[in-house]
């Protein structure tokens, strides 16, 4: 019976291909959002693990004041390392990134303050980092301490939004895929109406009559999910290099999530289940209408 279903889909290859493309496209959007959400989650987790904060000293703080505070910070058990950037180093770095070197030479003094990058132990919580930072905020030599977490919070909020959007689109496109399959199975069913009547006349149960149409649905869902897998693979290949560069510029080692077999197996299973659901919708509805009585 499954052979018949394969025979039908190959005989009507044009229609089958169209259905596969439609289902594939419909599945790609939510599956793509799911991958995006997963990748953002991984990247933000990596950024979160960069346990550090920046200390910006007053412009008029002396080297001795800076050194004293750095010593004080380094003596803290939870602080792993303190990297100091002197005003001169900061100016050199600034000059190398900008084209206003001539303008800088006109200044009578260096406007840039000394700064320090403070790295704490990996197991220190986010709250504790903020507490440590606030201890030094009151020091006279300190102008500002930045715990770079606000944008991370925003990223998480965006990620949550993407996750929810993924669910909404998943449900919408899932229903769409089921309806596309149902419409295609319905077409196959119409073309085999006479056969169905004969089957019923020789005593076929509804389950027996439905079976090939469930196979049709499964084949359509399987093909559609393969198309979706190909679309996503192509998208990942295209996006991996630029997004990797973006991530590493923020200090995160980006390894893309989405090339694991489990994801694609899951995608195909979802496709097949939706296809069978489409087949069921079409055959249940149409068989109720077919009346040989």
């Amino acid at each position, binding site marked *: 019976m499954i052979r018949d279903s394969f025979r039908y889909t190959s005989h009507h290859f044009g229609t089958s291909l169209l259905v596969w493309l439609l289902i594939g496209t419909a599945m790609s959007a939510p599956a793509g959002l799911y991958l995006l959400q997963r990748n953002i989650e991984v990247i933000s987790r990596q950024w979160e693990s960069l346990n550090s904060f920046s200390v910006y000293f007053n412009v008029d703080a002396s080297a001795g004041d800076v050194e004293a505070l750095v010593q004080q910070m380094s003596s803290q058990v939870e602080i792993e390392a303190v990297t100091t950037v002197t005003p001169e180093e900061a100016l050199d770095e600034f000059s190398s990134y900008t084209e206003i070197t001539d303008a800088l030479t006109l200044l009578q003094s260096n406007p840039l303050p000394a700064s320090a990058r403070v790295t704490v132990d990996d197991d220190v919580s986010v709250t504790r980092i903020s507490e440590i930072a606030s201890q030094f905020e009151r020091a006279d030599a300190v102008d500002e301490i930045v715990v770079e977490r606000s944008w991370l919070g925003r990223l998480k909020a965006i990620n949550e939004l993407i996750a929810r959007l993924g669910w909404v689109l998943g449900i919408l496109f899932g229903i769409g895929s089921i309806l596309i399959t149902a419409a295609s199975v319905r077409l196959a069913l119409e073309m085999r109406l006479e056969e169905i009547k004969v089957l019923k006349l020789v005593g076929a*149960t509804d389950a027996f009559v439905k079976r090939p149409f469930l196979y049709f649905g499964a084949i359509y869902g399987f093909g559609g999910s393969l198309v979706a897998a190909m679309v996503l693979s192509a998208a990942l290949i295209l996006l991996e290099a630029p997004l990797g560069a973006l991530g590493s510029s923020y200090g995160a080692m980006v390894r893309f999530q989405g090339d694991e077999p489990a994801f694609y197996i899951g995608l195909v299973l979802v496709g097949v289940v939706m296809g069978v659901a489409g087949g069921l919708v079409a055959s249940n509805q149409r068989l109720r209408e077919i009346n*040989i009585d």
Partner: protein
Amino acid sequence: MSKIEFLRVSKRFEGGGEALKDVSLVFPEGTMTFLTGHSGAGKSTFLRLLLRAESPTRGEVLVNDVNVVKLPSRKISAYRQNLGAVFQDHHLLTERSVYENVALPLKVAGMRERDIGRRVRAALSRVGLLEKERFGTRALSSGEQQRIGIARAIVNRPKVLLADEPTGNLDPGLSRDIMTLFEQFNQIGTTVIVASHDTELIGVMGFRIIELARGRVVRDDDATGLKERKGSGG
């Protein structure tokens, strides 16, 4: 074996006339009966009521004391699996081979593939088409298609065999052979009802003949023409 009873059965089609009018008939189990009459007399409707492909407007159709009119839809398929039916317009699956068409009732009944092959070849052999089992049905003549329909009807050794004009497209010699085949089935206890307007052929067969005209029974030569097959051997 199955006893069939029609109790005051009428059938009116929507927008049409009354195909059967107050028909009451009894077909004892293991008997063979011919239904005859002109076109539109109600022969096909009679058989379709038995097949539960139609429902009567009034009356009861009993098979082994079970009113098939009131069968729940989930039980209709099991009921039909015990019937063999030959249709006037063959009802063959044109995309399938001769073998696949004949195998259909057995597949529907869930028989194993190995047994299906044996039974299909036996049925094809009985209608003289064994050598064409791999042919597509479109490649066959109308008479051959009719014989495929007959092979499909007998392949599951039904308790009741219904045939609507089974010899309509066959030459006289082959028609006689097919009737003999039905007779052989009747001899092993199958209740056979054949609708045919070939009065010459059914006259020489010597079985019960019921004539319908405009939906009514106008002749039932039960008393004179019935051959009791059970035990007597005809």
